[in-house]
């Protein structure tokens, strides 16, 4: 993962352990799944099924369907509509999953 373009406004936020593509991370507990991926520096989280181009969360309100990931084995979840939960397993295109 690369350097994140985002940072958290809250100092010392409560942390939540999540697993992204098999690797465990601690992220601020108030993040949505999409926000967590951005926070971890994962901007391109999806490969477009037609062109194979990288895509990233776009609208963050459930309209655009650009942030589809697999959450706890459930495919095609909109990452922007779910909050991170302790132990949540998130898989993105970067792990070979293309939800």
């Amino acid at each position, binding site marked *: 993962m690369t350097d994140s373009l985002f940072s958290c406004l*809250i100092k010392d936020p409560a942390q939540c352990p999540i697993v992204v593509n098999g690797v465990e991370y601690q992220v601020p507990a108030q993040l949505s799944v999409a926000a967590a991926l951005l926070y971890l520096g994962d901007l391109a989280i999806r490969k*477009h099924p037609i062109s194979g181009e990288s895509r990233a969360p776009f609208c963050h309100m459930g309209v*655009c369907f650009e942030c589809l990931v697999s959450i706890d084995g459930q495919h095609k979840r909109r990452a922007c*509509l779910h909050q991170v939960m302790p132990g949540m397993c998130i898989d993105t295109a970067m792990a070979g999953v293309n939800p």
Partner: protein
Amino acid sequence: MNKIYDYLVIGAGPAGMAAAIEASNAGLRVLVLDQAASAGGQIYRNLGQVGDHQAKVLGADYLAGKPLLAQFMAANCDYQPMAQLWHIEAHEKGFMVVALVRGESITYVTSHLLLANGAMERPMAIAGWHKPGVMTAGAGQILLKTSALLPKRVVLAGSGPLLLLLAQQYRAAGVTITAFLDTTPKSNYWHAIPWLVAGFTTPNQLFKGVWLTLVQRIKTPYITGVSHIEVLGEECVTGVSYTAAGKAYEISCNLIMLHQGLIPETQMGQLLGCAQVWSETQQCWQTQVGVAGQTSVPGLQVAGDAGTIGGAYVAQTKGRLAGITRANSGVAALSLRKRLITLWLCLRGKQLNWARGLVDRLYRPAHWLSEPAQDTIVCRCEQVTASAITAIASTGCAGVNQLKGFTRAGMGACQGRQCGLNLAYLVAHAQNRPVSEVEPLTVRPPLNPINLGQLSRQAEL
């Protein structure tokens, strides 16, 4: 098991909350279904949980929603958050609404229905807008409200009050705004001048708007009259190019947030067969709505930004009016007090709509944005470019629905929400006819994706 309600409200934003408060106070059995995890809509998103530091950055207009939110939470109505509505249709008892709640599909039946599901951002189809590193300004604000997440540095591009507000909030939080590319056409200012009269009827809003604009112009690298923005970069965003005062410029950046106003979410009303009208002023389709929110379908109301874009306060006013009207339908003997409140809300709603005319004229989207460049991906889901759409439209295709069959544009997961308006503009331009004559994309269920397992567990439809 089917649950039967007197009034089902879709959306827990200012309009939905206000309507639910009124209707439940009057003793109706009310249910509010909302997609988000907590009430407030996009404008008051996460207001109930937000920390002091975030609240300070988000400002007074955001915190102004607290009394409404508190009243709603105390109201005697059922409230179901995290409900993803996927189907809605007429039913012998009124309407049937089907939503996914915790992964299970649940059917609700109601005699009367209010659509207060709000707005979305007007898609700003510029070249490269599909690349990682491009987001909407609304997305930026949602990240701030729900996740307390901020970009380190960002380019803001487009036009409209939300973009200015976001710039203000970002500056307050210490975000570096690399550039503010204002696409408001200069001619808009001339068209807006006569509407200052309307703007002065809501002086607070007017002065706030002027102040917000002036501050951003002074405190950010603010470039006016920007056109032909193009996002640069191979895989992810590395920069942005644009034209200003006849000259081409290029700046490097990794993150750009776009905005050019809001459009109503009309899909639910369309699915129920509500008459749609093209609004020349707001440049979008709207569900035809009467003073108290009534639509062309009996028993169905629309309130707030889901009808006409007006902002939080207008939405609250209209939601309240819709709720009171529903609660008193069929009751001839309205108390004098209720009658006066109704009259006042009607007049206030009309006046606020009129005042909004100033914002609509000033921030009317620039014409170049309705004619995306050839290689711009207009339908993001199906990867269809502007030139492919224009090529089919030029052959005389009947409209966007036929165009969908030829190109797959509008057939993807977002169900045409991100491309529908731009398809219509492109068809209108190619066929040299007004966009008002191009019919919107037909809406079909499911409005939200549902998998076969969930569908098979659905008890009855």
